[in-house]
């Protein structure tokens, strides 16, 4: 008895009238009625269970369909990424086989050379057959035979086995028997460009299911062929351009400044070599001739000249070898952790003694005792020798040469300054090019080889650094070298994504990290993001961390510093790790060279999308609240940059987004009204045919109907499921779903017409709709029809804010909105087509148990789970 009210409440929507009538009756009657209601309730319970089972079966079907969609999208992404025509052709046949389930696939592509279609790739075809097919040419007249109008369904052609009468129509209404695929039957799917040119076609046979594909499968196939057409067309253009480019580059080689430089290189090198060689050979000649008559002093003098010049020659040869080695992609260099201060000090002695000989002052300013840096010590030593040697060369007696060494946030700054002749302003940028000399005559005066600075630049570039020259007051020049502490290490965005992180995205994140570390003056910074499982943080990009750490780091939610920040969503600032009892364990981590760190969450709403962790201030001080406030103030901007960048620039991410959205939308949103939705779509398309919408627009409409409301997923669930009226803010949320949907569909490279249809599907006929507020005939016809179909399917189904309506009631609602929400002309046709399907709708509503309280299906890791409200 205690349970009775509960059951009563449970079944209240259905038995409300009965229950209401029961209240004033005598107790006995109430008992009888309650018993009756109890039995009824039990029956309802059974019905609910049956409905749930049906839903589970349906879920399976939907998941299958989602998988197909995923496949199509994956395949589209793959073929769109292929630029080489031959490679693309190879991929296509396999892709089609994979997605459509046809066991025999032949791809024919038009060849301009032979003026015929040629079989370019195969799936499920024996090698013998392939050889046979590859030789055959399908002339345009043959193709016309394959694409006869009476065989057409949508944009495909069904060819019956030779000699049989045509009868195959891919229609859902046909019984499975008549949908059986006959041996010898073929399906031709043309690859037709938007201009109508047929660039090729697919010859398909033997579906794995053994059945003629249904309209949905045909739509999928056509979606794929459209993607393939675009890919083939762009690959053709690309191939063409690549060939053109190759020709052009041969022709333009002479104009190429690089080639010019190489030419000068040879001329200059030979000149550099010949100058000492001239002295050597001339003096040797003189020696040979006059050996007997030469005075001993002259002999000494001659030999000294020969010796000096050979030393010079050897130096030049070494320089040239170094340079060419660097130009040959530097195989032998490796970077090791080195103390730059020690390295400079090691050279100091030789510089000081040289300075004394030349009567020049030498000074070394090292800003720190130790500056650790990953570098190639031999190369850096070579660079230092060149730069300082150069400074000595251009500094007259009585002048000064200074070498400076400072740390900045992300780099070490090395300067070599002299009080010499300086560098003409217009030559400042050129002096690091191979064999460039400000004044070719300067070589003579200073024994310069012109190779040194070019080598320095190569060394700096190899360390991902920068080098530049400037003049200083009152006189002299300064060369500055910036060596980054360690190039930012980037992780691929997601190990399972189809494409790796595109270059620009990587560059972008790297810049972001540099910016952060530079602004804060810190040496170590890491950007950590949750991995796909959501259990761990992995490092997406880092500065100042070894690559091995970046690759292997995994931080559990709630563990370590970043894990805690991820869990709590709150900034963590630790002044002194050694004194903070909370973090004893983490102290062992070797990468914290200063006992202070700062960890800030990047939040999108309440969700922590990333954690930025920084430590090791350059000046060795502890990170303080100023740093914290600063980084926190950067956080929202960083989040915005990251999320926006990733959603717009990263194709792979877009793909993930679409996949996820489609998965959840199909599973959650469409779950309950799958079949009713299909009928509504059918009504919509039938109406479109009635008003003589042209074939291609029908196609656009059919496509739009599949996807027009994917954006609903962007609307918070509590808004979508809110019983009762929406407030202003919630309404705005809902209205944004149109734009959100188009954003999600962005990467499908939607046809402009499809975009229009989806964009305007919530416009009202009187101009009061959204997002644009178009009115009357200005709203695309297809959008007006989608509006009607959307309304009908929504009314026929249960919504959290109202129960489902019967068909008559729903049709009345639409009639009531004619001229206001709905286009009068379209409504008339639409209602007419609806009426024609009355029985099916009523049956479906009944079968799907409309009116029970099964409400919504939630998703967890892609597995739909029924949830009872």
């Amino acid at each position, binding site marked *: 008895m205690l349970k009775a009210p509960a059951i009563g409440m449970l079944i209240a929507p259905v038995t409300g009238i009965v229950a209401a009538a029961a209240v004033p009756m005598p107790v006995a009657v109430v008992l009888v009625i309650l018993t009756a209601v109890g039995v009824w309730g039990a029956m309802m319970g059974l019905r609910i269970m049956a409905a749930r089972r049906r839903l589970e079966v349906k879920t399976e079907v939907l998941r299958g369909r989602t998988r197909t969609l995923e496949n199509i999208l994956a395949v589209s992404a793959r073929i769109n990424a292929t630029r080489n025509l031959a490679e693309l052709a190879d991929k296509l046949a396999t892709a089609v086989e994979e997605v459509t389930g046809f066991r025999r696939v032949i791809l024919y592509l038009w060849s301009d050379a032979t003026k015929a279609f040629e079989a370019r790739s195969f799936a499920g075809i024996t090698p013998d057959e392939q050889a046979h097919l590859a030789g055959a040419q399908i002339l345009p007249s043959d193709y016309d035979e394959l694409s006869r109008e009476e065989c057409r369904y949508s944009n495909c052609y069904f060819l019956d086995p030779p000699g049989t009468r045509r009868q195959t129509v891919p229609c859902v209404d046909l019984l499975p028997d008549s949908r059986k695929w006959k041996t010898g039957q073929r399906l031709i799917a043309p690859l037709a460009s938007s201009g109508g040119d047929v660039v090729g076609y697919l010859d398909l046979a033997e579906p794995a299911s053994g059945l003629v594909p249904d309209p949905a499968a045909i739509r999928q196939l056509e979606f794929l062929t459209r993607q393939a057409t675009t890919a083939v067309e762009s690959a053709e253009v690309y191939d063409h351009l690549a060939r053109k480019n190759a020709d052009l580059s041969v022709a333009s080689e002479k104009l190429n400044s690089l080639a010019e430089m190489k030419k000068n290189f040879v001329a200059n090198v030979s000149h550099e070599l010949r100058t000492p060689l001239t002295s050597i*050979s001339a003096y040797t000649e*003189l020696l040979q001739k006059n050996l007997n008559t030469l005075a001993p002093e002259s002999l000494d003098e001659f030999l000294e000249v020969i010796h000096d010049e050979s030393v010079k020659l050897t130096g030049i040869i070494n320089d040239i070898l170094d340079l060419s080695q660097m130009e040959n992609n530097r195989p032998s260099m490796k970077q090791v952790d080195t103390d730059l201060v020690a390295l400079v000090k090691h050279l100091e002695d030789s510089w000081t003694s040289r300075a004394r000989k030349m009567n020049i002052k030498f000074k070394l300013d090292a800003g720190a005792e130790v500056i650790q840096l990953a570098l190639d010590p031999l190369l850096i030593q070579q660079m230092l020798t060149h730069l300082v040697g150069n400074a000595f060369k251009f500094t007259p007696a009585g002048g000064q040469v200074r070498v400076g060494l400072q740390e900045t946030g992300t780099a070490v700054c090395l300067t070599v300054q002299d009080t010499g002749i300086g560098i003409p302003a217009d030559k400042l940028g050129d002096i690091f090019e191979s064999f460039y000399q400000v004044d070719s*005559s300067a070589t*003579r005066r200073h024994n310069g080889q012109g190779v040194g600075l070019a080598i320095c630049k190569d060394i700096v570039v190899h360390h991902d650094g920068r080098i530049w020259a400037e003049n200083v007051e009152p006189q002299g020049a300064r060369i500055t070298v910036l060596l980054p502490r360690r190039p930012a290490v980037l992780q691929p965005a997601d190990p399972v994504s189809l494409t790796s992180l595109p270059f620009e995205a990587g560059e972008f994140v790297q810049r972001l990290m540099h910016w952060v570390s530079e602004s804060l003056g810190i040496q170590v910074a890491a950007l950590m993001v949750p991995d796909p499982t959501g259990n761990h943080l992995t490092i997406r990009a880092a500065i100042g961390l070894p690559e091995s750490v970046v690759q292997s780091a995994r931080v559990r939610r709630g563990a370590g510093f970043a894990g805690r920040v991820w869990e709590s969503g709150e900034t963590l600032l630790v002044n002194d790790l050694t004194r903070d009892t909370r973090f004893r364990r983490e102290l062992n981590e070797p990468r914290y060279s200063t006992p202070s760190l700062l960890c800030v969450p990047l939040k999108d709403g309440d969700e922590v999308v990333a954690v930025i962790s920084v430590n090791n201030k350059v000046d060795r001080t502890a990170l303080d609240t100023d740093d914290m406030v600063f980084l926190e103030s950067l956080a929202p901007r960083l989040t915005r940059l990251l999320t926006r960048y990733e959603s717009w620039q990263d194709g792979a991410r877009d793909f993930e987004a679409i996949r996820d959205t489609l998965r959840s939308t199909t599973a959650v949103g469409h779950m309950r009204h799958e079949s009713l939705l299909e009928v509504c779509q059918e009504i919509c398309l039938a109406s479109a045919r009635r008003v003589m919408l042209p074939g291609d627009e029908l196609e656009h409409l059919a496509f739009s109907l599949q996807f027009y409301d994917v954006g609903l997923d962007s609307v918070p669930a509590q808004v979508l499921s809110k019983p009762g009226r929406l407030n202003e803010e919630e309404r705005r949320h809902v209205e944004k779903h149109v734009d959100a949907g188009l954003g999600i569909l962005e990467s499908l490279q939607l046809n402009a017409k499809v975009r229009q249809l989806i964009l305007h599907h919530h416009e009202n006929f009187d101009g009061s709709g959204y997002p644009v507020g178009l009115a009357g005939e200005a709203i695309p016809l297809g959008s007006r029809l989608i509006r009607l179909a959307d309304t009908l399917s929504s009314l026929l189904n249960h919504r959290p804010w109202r129960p489902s309506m019967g068909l008559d009631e729903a049709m009345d609602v639409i009639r009531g909105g004619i001229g206001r929400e709905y286009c009068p002309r379209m409504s008339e046709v639409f209602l007419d087509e609806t009426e024609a399907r009355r029985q099916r709708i009523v049956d479906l509503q009944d079968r799907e148990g409309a009116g029970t309280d099964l409400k919504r299906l939630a998703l967890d890791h892609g597995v739909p789970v029924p949830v009872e409200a």
Partner: protein
Amino acid sequence: MNDYPRVLVVDDEKPISTLLAQTFEQEGYEVVNAFDGIDCMNKMATFRPDVVIMDIMMPKLDGVDTTRLIRRNRSYEDTIVVALSAKSDEETRQRMKDAGANLFMRKPFVIAKLLARVSRMLEIQSGSR
């Protein structure tokens, strides 16, 4: 005026200019050294050489421009200019010829050959006079 032919050696490279001066002196020439183009023009006026041994890569004024200046002065019309350069590419050769050099020899050179050529040119010159 003595009868020894006069040679002006123009080269900024010390070992080479010393060597050339010694060699020509041994052969009985009167020799003066100049170390750049401007130096050369100054000494042209005072020394009035019969032969100029001209380097190309030099400070202040290079060999090509110096030769051009020499040729612009009618009084140096008969002066023999021998270009001697480590820059031996066709373009440099042509520029030197256009500037008015009588002979182009590339470095490194054989001293005996240089001497023979110079004396041969002087013979032709005196014969035609």
